[in-house]
């Protein structure tokens, strides 16, 4: 179902309940835009078109990514630390593949 993907996820190891935490995600992906130009072999678009992040069972961040976004896209957002648990990152790719990574957030 959801495959692993190379990503660097940076978030504080622990946070106080109610604290605003910054989450940084760098994911390795070519973000292949469609190439269809004279003299070039056409390449279908293959990008991560959706990114979704859940924490404590609730969606805290979602982004629609376009083909204008660079390869190895970097996303930074803030959220409120609610409870100890995994922050789950999911990406959907053109063609139906999906990827998943988790990062632990300890809330005290």
């Amino acid at each position, binding site marked *: 179902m959801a495959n692993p993907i*190379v990503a*660097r996820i*940076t978030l504080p190891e622990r946070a106080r309940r109610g604290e605003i935490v910054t989450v*940084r995600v*760098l994911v*390795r992906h*070519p973000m292949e835009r469609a190439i269809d130009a004279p003299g070039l072999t056409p390449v279908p678009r293959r990008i991560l078109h959706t990114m979704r992040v859940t924490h404590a069972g609730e969606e805290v961040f979602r982004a629609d990514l376009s083909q204008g976004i*660079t*390869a*190895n896209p*970097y996303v*930074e957002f803030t959220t409120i630390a609610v409870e100890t648990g995994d922050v789950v990152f999911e990406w959907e790719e053109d063609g139906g593949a999906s990827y998943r990574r988790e990062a632990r957030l300890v809330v005290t």
Partner: protein
Amino acid sequence: MIRRALVAALLAGGIAAASELRPSRDFLSPELRALQDDPSRHPGWLWVEDGEALWRRGERSCQSCHGGIDSMAGVAARYPAVAQDGALLNLETRIERCRTQQQGEAPFGYESDALLSLSAAIAQRSRGLPMSVATDGAAAPFVEQGRRFYETRQGQLNLACGQCHDDNAGRRLRGDVVSNGLGTGYPAYRLEWNTLGSLHRRLRACSLGVRATQFPLGSPEYLALELFLAARAAGLPIEAPGLRR
């Protein structure tokens, strides 16, 4: 009086000393410099992590001879260097030689993701350390060869490296700032490439830019030039993995 001062100023300008060279990071925009300094945002670290995993992989891993990758601290500052058989090796060709001769594996291939990852992970251990390649003894003829390459006008545009990287450093060219061309940030993540790339890939772009012969990756010409650039950068900090436009 004024004329004498002018002559003195011209003379001082003529012998561009190493003290005039500035670290490559000085030529970056504040935004790119911040990005280069922040591993949580720098895409080059995707390759560094990959390289650290490669270091440990396999039965005869790099680690089984060299120990932890942290033992590589300072190594990148000494390369390119002349091997015992007289060949000039940079970090990439040194790794390839280790791989074929010590590990008995097929070479990764220049500019392959695996080789870029390993060289980035190794070079990262020297980040911030001053460049200090050997320029005497067996290295001397290679430095000379590199210097000739650097100082010779080339290509349809008939330009020598120094006409941009010494005479016009700090000014703009094609929307970017011309640096001193030290190569201390390579392998670097170039936004234009959308990937990590080696110094030789960058040098090929330079050759193309002046419409000169592009030499193959790992060619003797670029190796000698890389050594000369490293000698020029003596004392300036290694920035690998760099971040470039």
